[in-house]
């Protein structure tokens, strides 16, 4: 049962996709497909991202000025759009990461109070 549990893919929480994109782009500019692949790979395929939902999110981030887009050439020599983190986006990422950490810690404390106490 537990093994089965681990195989279930988890749907993304609202808004976390933006965070994941920003985090992915910190490694360097990437095109849409590469971003999707990176997220899937890095989450060990646990996180279920419908690849298409990446695009509205990317455009939303452009509009907010957190990422920029540039025309470039992909590894197999095709024209592609490369997304890149802006300075503003970098700041936002730090901010969001801190927030995320706080949130997860808080939730963890509520969900597993015994574990916390046991450790303490």
């Amino acid at each position, binding site marked *: 049962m537990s093994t089965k549990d681990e195989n279930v893919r988890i749907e993304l929480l609202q808004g976390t996709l933006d965070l994941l994109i920003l985090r992915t782009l910190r490694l360097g500019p990437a095109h849409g497909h590469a971003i999707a692949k990176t997220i899937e790979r890095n989450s060990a395929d646990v996180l279920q991202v419908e690849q298409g939902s990446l695009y509205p999110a990317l455009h939303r981030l452009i509009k907010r000025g957190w990422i920029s887009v540039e025309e470039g050439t*992909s590894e197999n020599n095709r024209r592609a759009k490369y997304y890149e983190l802006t300075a503003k986006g970098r700041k936002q990422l730090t901010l969001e990461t801190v927030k995320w950490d706080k949130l997860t810690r808080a939730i963890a404390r509520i969900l597993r109070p015994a574990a916390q106490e046991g450790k303490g």
Partner: protein
Amino acid sequence: MTRGQRALENLDREIHDHLEQETQDNIARGMPPQEARNAALRAFGNITLVKENTRSVWVPVWLDQIIQDVRYGLRTMRRSPAFTIVSVLSISLGIGVTAVVFAAIKAVLIQPLPYLRPAELVQLRSEYPKMQEQAHTDWVIWNDTRELPQRTRTLESLGVWGNAIFDLAGDANAPPEALLGVRMTASLFPALGVSPMLGRNLLPEEDQPGHPDVMILSHALWVRRFHSDRSVVGRTVTFNGRGCLVVGVMPPDFTFPLRTEAARTPSPYMEFWAAPLKESPNPDAAFRAVARLRPGVSLEDARQDLASISRALAHDFPARNRDRILTLNFLSERNVRSAGKALLVLMAAAILFMLIGCSTVANLLLARGLTRQREMCTRLAIGAGRWRIVRQLLTESCTLALLGGVVGYILTAAAWKMLPALVPVNIPRLASARADTSIFEFALALAITNGVLFGIAPALRIAGPDHNTGWSGFGSRSAASGRHDRVRSLLVVAEVALSMMLVVIGGQVMVSFVRLITTNPGFQADRVLASVVLPARERYPSPEQRGLFYKRILDAVRLVPGVESVGTVNALPFSGENDGGWVSSSDVPDTERVEAEIDVTGGEYLQTMGIRLIEGRWFREEEMTEPNDGAIVNKLVALRLWPGASAIGQRICVSCTAERPQNWKRVIGVVSSASHAALDEPEKGNVYLSANAMQKAAFLVVRTERSLGEMEKAISRAVALIDPNQPVFLSVSMRQLISDSVADRRFITILLAITACLALTMAAFGVYGVISYTTSSRTSEFGIRMAVGASPRNILALVLRQNFTTVATGLAIGLALALLWIRFMGDLLAGLGSGNPAFIWIAGGLVSVIAGFACWIPARRATRVDPDVALRHE
């Protein structure tokens, strides 16, 4: 290709590349191509949804939907051109009328005066707290203006001025010309915060006595007489036969003072500003004064300050300041006077008219909504939200309204192309009203308001909760629900009530205007020509010289063929000139005084004007040149001073005060009363004197059978033979002068009457439209009624009864509101007071008859229904 399309194409390509790459990856992992492709598509998700979601990031959804709705609305409009034309016309008329009035309000009331920090500018004024009626014009005496600056703690930079007429010498290209302008102290322009476009302001020493004359030209005069020659600044020009140094030219948009009276003058606007106020002015001479409130000082503070200064002045100068207090008003307010109220009333009327247009269109939309109900039901059935449908319908009505707004703006622009030529000069700045961008924005804002106003009820109705009727009533137009009829009845009531209000108020104003212009001025205005001949003091310095000159003119004009009689006067009625004072029968202080207009007349002035002699005799020819104490008074003076006794031979003291006690005259005649300043003024005393008439004459009046144009030329020739440098101006019939004096009220009345007529027409068509629509939708009902034995008379009675109840409700409400309005608004403009109450009933009757017709015609048609046809109607 638009930016949006290009972005979409880019997105398409990106998605395509993405899928391609995913497919390649899958193939690389060993999937067969078809399966790889399918897996890629699965992993990607719904492509259309992705595109739509991405698009909504670029363009907000609501905006996108509005654009869609507008497009759809425009298509619908194209499909029913008759509906579109009628609606757009109704809306554009309403918006047009309102925007025309708004442009006027903006020019007259909203636009700040064209001077520096105009909100601080005040105009000084004298009032006599003991007298009932205060002067219309604002004046102070020269001595006040000398004392004030040293005593005030609330005012700064006082500017003093008075009207002046200068003769500009003629040359080879232009005849001699009289110019209207201003004599002022050097402090006036600094007080207003203005300076010339060319040259400089007057220097403080230039308004001192003995300094050579200097003047600043208006832009218009500079262009007209000096051909925009810049070198005129610094040159000496001959005015009044004397050299006068031109030191500056004002910018084209400058004028001061603004025109507030209809008086005929050589030109409607000031053409020069000159110093000095001549020889050291008489301390008692009347001038006008503007000043600036010190920063932070309120009008009330300044009034209190002036009141205490008035008390001090009354103590220091009893002869000049006893019983008289100084006060002040904002310059802007003194320039607008009653025109402000009239314009606001016009605005109210225009808005009422616009509301009639709104209810007409709302009714049309309701009627059309029935035919569109099936469309809406389909939309609701396939999942459109009710709010979404209301929004769509509102967008459609706003699109319609915006179209109307644009057409309305075009109407406004056209109206204001034409109107400036017709506006009265005595509503200051009205002629400068234009349909500019702010008026365009105003029209669009009105349009949106209109669109929501007339669109909301139909939209809620159509998208309303009982939308099932749309299906159950399929194929049956008679299924119009009761609630539908209620909304429609309400709109009819509103339309009828609004038009009733407008017609009664408009008619009221029209009737009182007609009554005003048909008021007997007390003299025979027809066939009397008035001209101004003002001998310049520079060329005729002594009173004797002026007297001799005028006597020669009088004698010469008497000989002009066609002249029946000629007279002269120092202040002509309706010319803007007056010489007010009082008379009493004794010089003991505090005896009864009768306020009177005191005029010095020469020649056969009274006979020429057609004033009737009641008792005694006219002046004799020799009395106007020889010293004498003859006076002619009107019957009001005679009745008040010597009730029950004959006035002839009685002594009167003219404008006597404790300091000037002995101005005795003897009454030789009693005449009928004549108005002097305005048709609506209460009867006042008239006193006519004759001594030194030739020396004081300024106006020449001529009674003639010949055309006034010919007579004007003949008079000018006669004067030119005596002095070729003497300008003659004004030259207008007395009838015209009277007409000019009510020009502001005529303008307002005409606009109001036009609005009322349009309102009546629109309401009539609106009511007719609704009733004929509802009646025709009941055709099959009437068919059944007639089939079971109802006579055409029964049907007629039925339809009339049902519809006229609605209309009568509207009539009653409208009449009640109109009466309330008339009761509480009081006089619209001086002299346009409450009219004949009988007229209110006539106006009410007119609206009722027209509304009755609008009910009767469709009812008549209903009776002609052939039952057989009617039953097969649908």
